[in-house]
């Protein structure tokens, strides 16, 4: 009655151990993801690794750069001349407009001096090239070719000639990742230019839409209204164009309206962006109160 118990692992054993190993790796992956999402403990790792990632970015973006270089090299002379003419015309227009604005700015400065306002309107910007790689078409992230070596810091505002694009998320020595305002996890304090109404513009995950939920019905919001940064978040200076309202509908309860706005900035991959070095005037911090609870007995 003595059976030999086979020592060799059966197929079933192998499968069971593979499943166990998978479960262990899934657990590890989930722990890492939660640590990254909640704690942000891994920013240091990311920053170091981006030194190694940079050559990969350079190689991966080379086809796009090559094609741009070729199209520049072989484009027709006539087209270049036309482009040049159109650009100098638009520059002329812009300069004329600037000249007029300068007078207004002088006036504004004098008025501000009279009021004793200290905040300057100056903006310090720096050109930065987008690294032409594709992180994921369904995530609204871009890579900028400037890093901590150039003084870029997390939370820095990224704009283009038309409006706000997003803000820097993680910084490496040579390149940095930025999140666009259309990312679903991004929210931006804005102000309606016409009425001064303050609200928050949320990203929707679609490249052409921002959502403005929870606006009171009584607020006078119309399609075509322009939205500007309100400067309340402390990251973007006030007065940068953000989006234009295109669609207004009442929400499910009927007590609020929900608006959809199209971003002004061109949120495509390629091209150049501006990084802002303007320090937005910090809001005066209220002194911390020790105890927010109920007053204690006997006080």
């Amino acid at each position, binding site marked *: 009655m003595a059976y030999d118990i086979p020592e060799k692992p059966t197929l079933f054993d192998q*499968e069971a151990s*593979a*499943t166990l*190993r*998978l479960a262990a*790796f*899934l657990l*590890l*992956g*989930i*722990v*890492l*993801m939660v*640590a*990254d*999402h909640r704690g942000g403990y*891994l920013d240091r*790792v*990311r920053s170091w*690794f*981006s030194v190694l*990632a940079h050559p*990969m*970015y350079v*190689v*991966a*973006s080379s*086809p*796009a750069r090559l094609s741009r270089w070729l199209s520049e090299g072989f484009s027709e002379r006539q087209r270049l001349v036309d482009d040049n003419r159109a650009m100098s015309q638009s520059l002329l227009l812009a300069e004329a407009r600037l000249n007029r604005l300068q007078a207004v700015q002088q006036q504004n400065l004098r008025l501000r001096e009279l009021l004793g306002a200290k905040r300057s309107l100056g903006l310090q910007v720096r050109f930065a090239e987008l690294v*032409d*790689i*594709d*992180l*994921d*078409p*369904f*995530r609204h*992230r871009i*890579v900028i070719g400037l890093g901590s070596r150039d003084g870029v810091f997390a939370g820095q505002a990224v704009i283009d000639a038309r409006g706000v694009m997003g803000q820097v*998320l*993680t910084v490496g020595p040579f390149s940095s*990742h930025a999140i666009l305002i259309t*990312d*679903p*996890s991004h929210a931006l304090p804005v102000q309606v230019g016409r009425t001064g109404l303050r609200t928050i513009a949320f990203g*929707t*995950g*679609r490249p052409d839409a921002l959502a403005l939920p929870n606006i009171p019905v009584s607020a006078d919001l119309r399609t075509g209204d322009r939205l500007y940064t309100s400067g309340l978040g402390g990251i973007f200076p006030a007065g940068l164009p953000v989006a234009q309202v295109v669609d207004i509908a009442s929400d499910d309860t009927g007590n609020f309206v929900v608006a959809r706005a199209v971003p002004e900035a061109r949120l*495509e*991959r*390629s091209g150049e962006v501006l990084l802002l070095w303007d320090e937005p005037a910090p809001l005066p911090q209220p002194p911390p109160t020790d105890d927010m609870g109920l007053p204690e007995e006997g006080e």
Partner: protein
Amino acid sequence: MSTNRHSQWLFWSSLLVALLLALVPLPASLQPFKPYMPALVMLYWVLEAPDGIGLGVAFGFGLIADLLFGTLFGEQAVRLAILVFLGMRFRARIRFFPLWQQALAVLALLLNDRVVVLGIRVFAGEGWPQPSFWLSPLAGMLLWPWLFLLMDGLGQWGRARR
């Protein structure tokens, strides 16, 4: 010995090329169709040379990809581990399918991968993606036979050259 070294070399360089191809931008209209190259290359190696590749390799490679793409640390690691696990489980069957049937199996695996991504992103609060999110597995299926033949050819070339 030399074959072994060649296939090792082919293995690591194919993974590197897969990462680079995943980073290269496509024209905006073609972007949703971009196949998830690291997954395809991993699947090829699971089917052809399962000894060299395990869940650990897939997981580690996924972590590197996560750092490179700026995704949540662990997202692609989990995706690739699940993919390699399923590939190993069904390897005996998929391996002897004709190429077009293999491509269908790859489509199923990639769709499953998309579901995993969706789960992770919704949990992380990134919201529901657009419908074109589901197009990438189709492109992966169409690419599979060509990738398979190319990798096979490269492997044989290395062996013949010895």
